[in-house]
């Protein structure tokens, strides 16, 4: 089980309070689909993904990005209990969605990059370390029930 220090928890929680989940979620998913185009394989039903602007402006991408990032809100609330918190989602991603867990790491990395664009200097190395630790732990929790 991943252990977060008090400082790491404060860093994560304090930044999360300022995150516009709808805006950041859309950007994170949009950037993932542009920078790593093979991730589009999971989103055939999303309509127009033919260009960078189409992807970033796509309403389904924005909506789904918001949904994905909202579940990170749950992670922030349960940093000591991620495996249980994400058990059901893990089963879903394995059994129904068939998503390679490597994608969770890519998404996690993208979250740090987008947070950096929004928070700039406030996204210090220690802040980044806490967030990357959290996203890596969520990625592991989401992969935990794979079989």
């Amino acid at each position, binding site marked *: 089980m991943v252990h977060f220090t008090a400082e790491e928890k404060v860093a994560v929680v304090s930044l999360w309070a300022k995150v516009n989940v709808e805006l950041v979620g859309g950007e994170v998913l*949009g*950037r993932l689909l*542009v*920078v790593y185009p093979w991730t589009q394989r999971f989103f055939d039903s999303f309509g127009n993904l033919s260009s*960078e602007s189409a992807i*970033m402006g796509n309403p389904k991408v924005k909506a789904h990005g918001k949904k994905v990032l909202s579940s990170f809100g749950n992670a922030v609330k349960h940093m000591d209990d991620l495996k249980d918190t994400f058990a059901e989602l893990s089963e879903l991603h394995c059994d129904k969605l068939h998503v390679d867990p490597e994608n969770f790491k890519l998404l996690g*990395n993208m979250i*740090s*990059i*987008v947070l*950096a*664009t*929004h*928070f*700039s*200097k406030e*996204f210090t*190395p*220690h802040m*980044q*370390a806490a967030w*990357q630790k959290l996203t890596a732990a969520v990625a592991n929790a989401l992969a935990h029930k794979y079989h």
Partner: protein
Amino acid sequence: MLSAQERARVAQVWDLIAGHEASFGAELLLRLFTVYPSTKSYFKHLGFCPDETQLLTHGQRMLEAVGVAVQHMDNLRAALSPLADLHAQVLRVDPSNFPLLIQCFQVVLASHLQGEFTVEMQAAWDKFLTGVAVVLTEKYR
């Protein structure tokens, strides 16, 4: 490997950081060591807690090499050959570490350039740095 448009975007990003190789390089290394402490194993000569001067010196060296790569995007292998030899014979940095450095590089760019670090620039820069990493590890075996 990089389209003309991607090369233009790589050059665009470089123009925004050229002249700041030392400070960007130092921040890059600081983030690398903070987020991925195991990477410090390659920098024993900088000590357990590298000071600012060491980070600036080494960071500048690394960013200047990136600058060389930017100037020779159409011929990375030739331009980076001495560095590829160095990494293969002397440094022998495990290839798994390059994505970690690339991630930190993206975060440095994102935090300094913010909205100017568009998705198109990120995509081009990520592809470019990944290409550099491939060249630097190509002679490993």
